[in-house]
């Protein structure tokens, strides 16, 4: 089967039932999506599928064949962070970092559909993403900052 990950077409030879998370991590060495609860409950495995946030632990490979998958690795570069990554960095929206890939990708999708989100929009977008470090306050601040930054860019 062919997967389009971060702009590159990759061939994988595994069961079409295998969750995308395991294909990314174990077959393609893309470890940004984290293997947290692995049953859709924590959000740290979230990736973008055709721009929409999806739990990669719930998605069998067959469901994403041919679709564009974006992981945290495909969002920005260490020397050229995406606006959402930069906001999380500057606003201390990340501590241990385990939830950060999912948080950042869910935020990226949120700002695509709602460029000027209010707090209710932010909480709705991130309500399924668990963070055991930050208490969420800094994360919400980072999302607001990212929205402001991307708004300025427009």
């Amino acid at each position, binding site marked *: 089967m062919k997967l389009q990950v971060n702009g590159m077409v990759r061939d994988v030879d*595994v*069961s*079409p*039932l*295998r*969750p995308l998370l*395991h294909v990314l991590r174990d077959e393609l060495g893309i470890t940004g999506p984290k293997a947290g609860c*692995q*049953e*859709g*409950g*924590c*959000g740290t495995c*979230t990736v973008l599928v055709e721009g*929409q*946030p*999806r*739990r990669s*632990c*719930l*998605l*069998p490979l*067959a*469901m994403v064949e041919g679709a564009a998958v974006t992981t945290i690795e495909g969002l920005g570069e260490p020397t050229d962070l995406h606006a959402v990554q930069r906001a999380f960095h500057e606003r201390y929206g990340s501590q241990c970092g385990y939830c950060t890939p999912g948080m950042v990708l*869910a935020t990226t999708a949120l700002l695509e559909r709602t460029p000027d989100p209010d707090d209710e929009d932010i909480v*709705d*977008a991130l*309500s*399924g*993403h*668990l963070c055991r470090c930050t208490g969420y306050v800094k994360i919400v601040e980072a999302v607001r900052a990212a929205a402001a930054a991307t708004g300025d860019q427009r």
Partner: protein
Amino acid sequence: MPEATLVLVPTSPEEAVAAFRAAAALTVVGGGTVTIPDIAAGRTAPAGPVLLLWRAGLDTVARTGGVVRLGAGLTLDRLHIAPAPIGEVARQIGDREVRAQATLGGNLCVRPLDTAPRGDLQVPLVALQARVEVAGANGTGSLPVERYLAERPLGLVLTVEVDDVPRLAATARLDRPHTHSYTALHVCAAARSEDGVLREARVVVGGLTGTPLRLPGVEAVLEGRRPGEVDVAEASALAAGLEARTDALASGWYRARVAPVLVARALNRMLGRAEERA
């Protein structure tokens, strides 16, 4: 992960039904939010081929002849178009990412765990007297959701039908401690309003037992009365002392005591909507 499992991805309802009928045994996957992690973790082994339904064209909505037909493949985030309060209940399941993948058919068919109830949509579907269209080995038929859940006939769920009629409906629930927690207990009340009189009242509790539980005594208090004539305290008291399951979310003791409170809230909301309309 069973690498050799045959995976079928039908591209039409007809293909899906044909594949279902051709297999002696198979595992049907709607959205996959329950089944896929179970298979990946080895908690479930597929029985025969796996039938993946998301490209089977079962995500349609049709309104004809006073009936809304909801495809079993509709994802939960699209159920805001369904008769109330189906959308309201769907919004309380998982988070937006899970709701974008989980399906109406999957939520209808899912069974409770020992540790938690599941299938929140079963409750409003019973309250709205919805019918489910099932393709079995020898044909396709329709039966009430209430009966479907009681008998679980072998078949492929294609659509859910709900009468598109003026109706009062409301829900009440225990808040979830977290977005991904299952609902410990919830109630849906619904009734048709004919010339201001409540008809075909249904009061259904989810989470109390393994399947949605109707409360005929409470329904009888509503039946044939005008909203202003209903004594909610009298009605909700009839929900006291019910036998309830104990699991990881709540004890049976707690559920039994909270059920009448939620019944009262649901009735007050439903009757309040009648006053708003008046």
